[in-house]
Structures are given as C-alpha cells and as structure tokens.
C-alpha cells in the first residue's frame, strides 16, 4: 500500500485534522468522537439544517461540502464505512437551527439504517426531521428496483439544491420536496480504470489488470455491468450517456445539469476529454446543458475512473444550482 499516511488507524482523524488546519476557520471538527464536521459559523436561526454523512475516502464528499449554501454538518465514518449513531445524532443536533433538519444521504445499507434510527429517535423527541435518500447509480440495479440503487455523485446536486433551498428560508417539507424533485430526475454511472486500497485492509479491494476497465462499478468497488478492454474516451462517453438517457428518458428540449466527476486518480485533462463528448452527445439528443461541473467531487481515494451524472432541471432547480455557495472544497 503506497500512501502518504502514518497508520491506517489514524487515517481519518489525521486527515480531518489536516483538513480543518489547511482551510483555516472553515471547517469545525466537533462531536464526542471528533467525527462531526460543522460550519465554523452557523447559519441564521430558524432555517432548515441540512446534514449528510457517510464513509470516509470520498473527499470532497461528504464532509468537504459543509459550508454556506451547502451542508450545515456532516457525520464522518471510517474509510468506506458509515458513521456511528452518535456521530449522526450529534451532526443533526449541530445542524439544527430551529427550522428542522433534512438528512441527505446516499443509499447504502448501514447509512440508511443508522440515519433512520437517529431520525426516528429525534422525531420521537420532538425534532422536525426528514430524509432524502439518493439512489442515482443506474448501473447498480434495474429500473424496476430503482429504489435499491446506490447513491453516487448525484448527491452533489442534492446537497447544492437542498443547501440553497434551506438558505432561502424554505420550510423542511419544501426543502425535502425540491431535493426529491431534483433526485427524481438525476442519474449517474461510473467507469473504473483502477482499484483503490482501504488503508485498514492494506490491499486493493479488487483488481483491474492490464487494460481492463469496469463499466458501472460503484465508488467502493461494487461490481459493475461489464469488464473489458479500455476503449476510446468517446466510446465510453457514448455508452455512459446512452445508459443514462435510456433510464431517464428526458423529452427533447429538456434542460439538464451535468457533472463529469473524477474518481480520484483520473486527471482533469482526461475528464475534459470525456466531458467534451458527453456535452456533444447530450446536445445531439436535443438536451440543453444549463449547468455543468467537471472535476473531483465524489472520489474513491486513488481510484482511476470517472462518473457522469445528468439531472433534469427546471427554473426552480436551476436557480438553486446557481445560488451562492461557499466552502473551501466547493468549486462551480
């Protein structure tokens, strides 16, 4: 395992410490386990708090998106393993400004169950709680079982929409509704070119030898749709866009937001080559790209590969995507 680390056990805590030091004053680490990241400066009272949480090793996701117009707090787990009940509970409390709290989480067993427990408990105690579960990865299940799909990079758009809606002063049901509207029209798919190593495991979770790539692989190395030889970027883009549009079935003329995301080791140069074709294909399909992001948004440490996310937008969503947002790891 060739990583710039001290020990697998200290990986998360040291990285969080460095993150808060490097971006002086932006991220506040708190919580009884030191696994809550919250805004240094809380948002105005009365507004909806937006919370997320998940395994570590996906920076900027999840904790990197704590900031103005985005998340209020985030619970941080271990590498590729979800946060504890206490971390989540403390994150919700940190985010609570009196307007209720929306949890925006990715669809993974542990996370949904533990967030569910916390939400039920806090609701029973009288707090206003709601949850949006993001399940955007079309490769992880067929459409008839869409609710079992994994959550991947589409959650970035969910954070942006929920964060902006909350900042505008919308109510908890409204923030939840608009975030769910966004996610209902949001689809992602990934392609992996190489594996990554969970520090505690010390060895890659899987192997992609030689010129092998895997279409549809998840951000923790979850099995994809096929494994085969590398193809030209344009062909890969074509398959990804086709799979997304086949699932989403947007009517021509629809406006969309696009995110071409690096899984970590894939450089910006290659992302842009991919983006170029994705954009051409979307336009050719009669869609209008109204908002676009390309870069590292949801990674798997040093995994090479990329994901493409397409989300239908209307004026309301577009307004929320373009609303101000500010934190060290947010880039638009």
């Amino acid at each position, binding site marked *: 395992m060739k990583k710039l680390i001290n020990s697998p056990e200290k990986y998360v805590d040291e990285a969080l410490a460095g993150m808060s030091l490097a971006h002086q004053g932006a991220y506040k680490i708190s919580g*009884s386990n030191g696994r809550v990241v919250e805004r240094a400066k809380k948002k105005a009272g009365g507004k909806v708090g937006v919370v997320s949480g998940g395994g570590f090793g996906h920076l900027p996701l999840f904790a990197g998106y704590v900031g103005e117009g985005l998340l209020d707090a985030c619970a941080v787990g271990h590498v590729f393993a979800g946060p504890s009940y*206490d971390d989540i509970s403390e994150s919700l409390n940190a985010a609570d400004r009196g307007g209720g709290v929306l949890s925006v989480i990715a669809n993974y067993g*542990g996370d949904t169950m533990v967030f569910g*427990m916390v939400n039920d408990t806090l609701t029973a105690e009288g707090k206003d709680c709601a949850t949006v579960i993001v399940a955007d990865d079309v490769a992880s299940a067929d459409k008839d079982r869409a609710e079992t799909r994994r959550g991947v990079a589409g959650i970035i758009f969910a954070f942006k929409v929920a964060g902006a809606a909350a900042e505008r002063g919308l109510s908890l049901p409204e923030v939840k509704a608009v975030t769910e509207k966004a996610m209902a029209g949001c689809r992602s798919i990934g392609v992996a070119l190489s594996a990554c190593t969970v520090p*505690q495991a010390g060895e890659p979770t899987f192997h992609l030898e030689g010129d092998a790539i895997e279409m549809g692989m998840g951000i923790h190395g979850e099995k994809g749709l096929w494994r085969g030889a590398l193809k030209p970027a344009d062909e890969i883009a074509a398959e990804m866009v086709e799979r997304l549009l086949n699932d989403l079935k947007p009517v021509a003329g629809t406006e969309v937001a696009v995110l071409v995301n690096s899984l970590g080791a894939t450089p910006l140069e290659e992302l842009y080559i991919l983006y170029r074709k994705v954009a051409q294909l979307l336009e050719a399909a009669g869609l209008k790209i109204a908002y676009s992001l390309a870069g590292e948004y949801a990674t798997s440490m040093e995994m090479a590969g990329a994901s493409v996310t397409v989300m239908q937008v209307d004026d309301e969503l577009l307004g929320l995507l373009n609303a101000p947002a500010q934190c060290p790891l947010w880039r638009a």
Partner: protein
Amino acid sequence: MATVFTGTDVGAAMRRVALALVENKDRFNKLDAAGGDGDMGTTLATVSQALLADETLYPDDVGESVMRIAKTIARTSGSSLSAVVMTGLITLGKTWSAKHEVAWIEMAPALSNALETMQARSKARLGDKTVLDGIARVARDIEGISTTEKMRATAQQATADALAEFRGCPAIMGRLRLEPSKGVGTDDPGMVALHVAISAMAGSLSDRAVGGSNK
C-alpha cells in the same frame, strides 16, 4: 438447573462474545471481502474492543445491561450489521426494562419481537441470507426451552443449521452488489458472526452454572 438470567449474565456473555469477535477479525474481514466490502471483521473488532474497554460491572437490570451494549455500538460503528444488531438490542432492552431476571422461556418470543424491529429497519426479507435468517432460526428452535443448558446447545446448533441451510443460496444484501450466482456455496459473514457469538455466549452461560462472573 438455571432457568433465568440476569443483567450480570448479559455482561459476562458480552465479554465472551467480544473476545471471540476480536479473535476472528481477520477471518471476518476475509469472509466479507469475498462478497461484501471486507470490513466486517474490523467493525466487529472495533465495537468489541470498546465493549471490553468498559470494565465496570454490568447491573442486574437486564434491560439496562442490554442497552449499555447498544449504546457502545451507537458510539463506535455505523455498519449494516451494527445497525441491525443495535436495533435488536434496543428492542430487547425495552422488553426487559427494569427486570432483574428474565426466564429463558421468554427468550424465544422476545427474540421474535426483536427480529420484527430489525426487519423493519433493515428492509431485508427472511431468506435474503443475512444475519436475520440466523436469528430467525434461533428464535424458532429455542421455542419452549427453559433451561440454560438446553438453551446453549440448541441456540448454537440453530446457528450452525442456518449456515448449512443458506450455504447454497445466493447472497442478496450487503454493501457490494454481487452477481446473483455469487455467494452460492459461501456463508453469509453476518450469519457466521452470529454463530461465533452464540458459541462464545454459550461458553459464558455455562460458566454461570459453575459460578462465572462478569469479568
């Protein structure tokens, strides 16, 4: 022959289980890596170490003792298995709240009740080849049993039987999506952990018969 157990017994059982889970860390990681994300051993070891680190005696109150375990899980882990187990423990803790003794005969219905809350939380169905199928089998097989000795042998056998029963089935839940065929011929890691835990617990229960303590 003992027909009841106390909160102190829960503490003793917990220590046996925790030690066994720590011991099996690498084995569990390997098992989970085959079809899941390979972290179950680490997760269970982390929780177990936290449980072992708390050296204060467990109270006689069975509900309180069970809740104490649930709280340690709540503090230290967020995995699927932890969530499922925590849910079950909380249900049991409520069922046995303020009881200084629980009759073994009440175990089967309490476990069935806990299983329902676990299913509600986890969305897994019985037959999905998860830890829940092991628990369901235990709950079924121990029905009507009222002595420690019988309980020990039966529960242990039930987990072994569950493993055998599901070995030929495909795996369905878990963090890594599997090929439908995959998982056939292998054991579900959570079910193996249950078997290890109940085997260790059985050891601790027998201790009580010979005067075992919390430590």
